[in-house]
């Protein structure tokens, strides 16, 4: 989780990822953020987020992103 928060912080320093619950639906992250983020996550956590996983419910909050990472890691 910590690693994730750091990546997110790097990506968009001005956003408070602890409280924001609608990153996608609220338009906080745009598609370029996502592209950048996914690449970063894949690299850091050795997972494969494919573009089929690019659903709002996977990316709306830091918590959701974390859950997705855990799920993908266990699928490994």
């Amino acid at each position, binding site marked *: 989780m910590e690693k994730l928060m750091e990546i997110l912080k790097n990506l968009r320093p001005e956003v408070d990822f602890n409280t924001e619950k609608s990153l996608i639906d609220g338009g906080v992250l745009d*598609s*370029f953020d996502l592209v*950048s983020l996914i*690449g970063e996550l*894949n690299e850091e956590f050795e997972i494969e987020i*494919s*573009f089929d996983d690019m659903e709002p419910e996977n990316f709306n909050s830091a918590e959701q992103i974390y859950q997705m990472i855990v799920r993908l890691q266990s699928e490994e």
Partner: protein
Amino acid sequence: MTINSMSFLLFFLGTAVVYYLPFLKKYQWAVLLAASYLFYFFTGTDNFIYILITTVTTHFSALALSRKNKQLKEYKERCKKEEAAEYKERIKREKKRIIFFDVVINVGILIFVKYSNFFIFNINRILDGERGIELKALNILVPLGISYYTLQSIGYVLDVSKGKTKAEANLLKTALFVSYFPQITQGPIGRFEKLAPRLFRSHKPAWQNLSFGCQRILWGFFKKTVIADRMNPFVDEIFLNFQQYSGFTLFLGCMYFSIQAYVDFSAYMDIAAGYSQILGIKLEENFMRPFLSQSLAEYWRRWHITLSSWFRDYLFYPLSISKPAVKLSRMGRKYLPARIAKLVPSIYAMFVVWFATGFWHDASWRYILWGVANGIIMISSMCFSGTFQTWKEKLHIKDENRLWRLFRRVRTFLLISLLKVFPAADSTGNSLQILKHIVTDFQISFSYQAWFPGLIKNYLAYILFGLILFFAVSIRQEKEPVRNYLARKSFVLRWCLYLIILCSVLAFGVLGTGISGGFEYAQY
């Protein structure tokens, strides 16, 4: 035999009759395969070998990949997590090898047949006759539809690898997927998961398919013969003899070319989709009224959709999250503001994609330039979007403002048209020359000759009639499918419209063998 010819119509009628024979119900796909190969044969392509290689490599790569996927799944169920991870790595490597093999062969063929002359020419230029080395041009006859079916086949293999779709076990069915005749010449590039079930299932003759199919074919013929083919000689003339025209005329020429190219291509799609629908097989849509786009990026989401989405899914996405992209992005973050830094992976991927898109169209520098120019404009609009936003706020422009939307549409159209200077000219040098003319010699004039050089006034009337009807339909279509709109109208009104279109195709269209020069002959 092109798809808009009378001989194709006859060929199709024959196929459709056999296709719907009751006792062949289970073998409809085989009828399609036979028809597809016959069509390929009739089109005068004697180089069958390429499509056969693609079919076979695609088929067996897909099968091998799906076997690997299955092995992995079974192994996972049986073993512990740690062991599975190791096994997975192995499978991954093997899969990569298969994909590599498939892509190298298929892209290799494409490059060999389509691009060898381009490379040879450029190598010769670099060598510049040094030491008397000069490579001979190969002049291979480019097999029909190779640019399209190659992408379609590779897409299928990649989908199987990702587990998005199952591999087809029957080689002949794969052959049909690769060669389905209504779409082989110019696409649309189909996706296996959507197209294959439609191809392999049996279809009952249905009234709606017939009527919608015929409507669409008619509409396609209208666009093709009344607008595109009428415009063709005159637009050609402008670009062939561009030295004679002012920058203003050349700029108009770019707009004409851009309209003509769109109408021509989309007409082709209408005809192909219409024919296919009669057989009960829906093809993917390739156009969504691109000229109503408000930005270049939107234009590319609405123009040649199956191509741009192919590049998006199979090139842009993987590239933008690939390791080099991540590395670039990390580097970017050190030196660039965060707003721009996050764009770095996308920019990197976009650049490659646009280079490839340009190159895919044609083996020439002007297409590469055209692709890259598209990419650069989109990348810069990404980078400056923040700035634009601030301006807009200062000027109190709202996105929903009608005038603003119209402005954006016109601006996008002009931009697209200007970019068309690359495809429109017949060589890279000429396209740059034309650009120069447009910039340095732009004199607005209102003479007929400046607006429509060499175009017979009668033909202009036909073209305008066609375009007005065409744009009226496009704007209506933006709100709801015109077919639904028509379906609400009375039978009489609907049929009046069909018959008017049919008659105007006969009267105003360029059909069969032209009658140019006609009466001179009867004098003797």
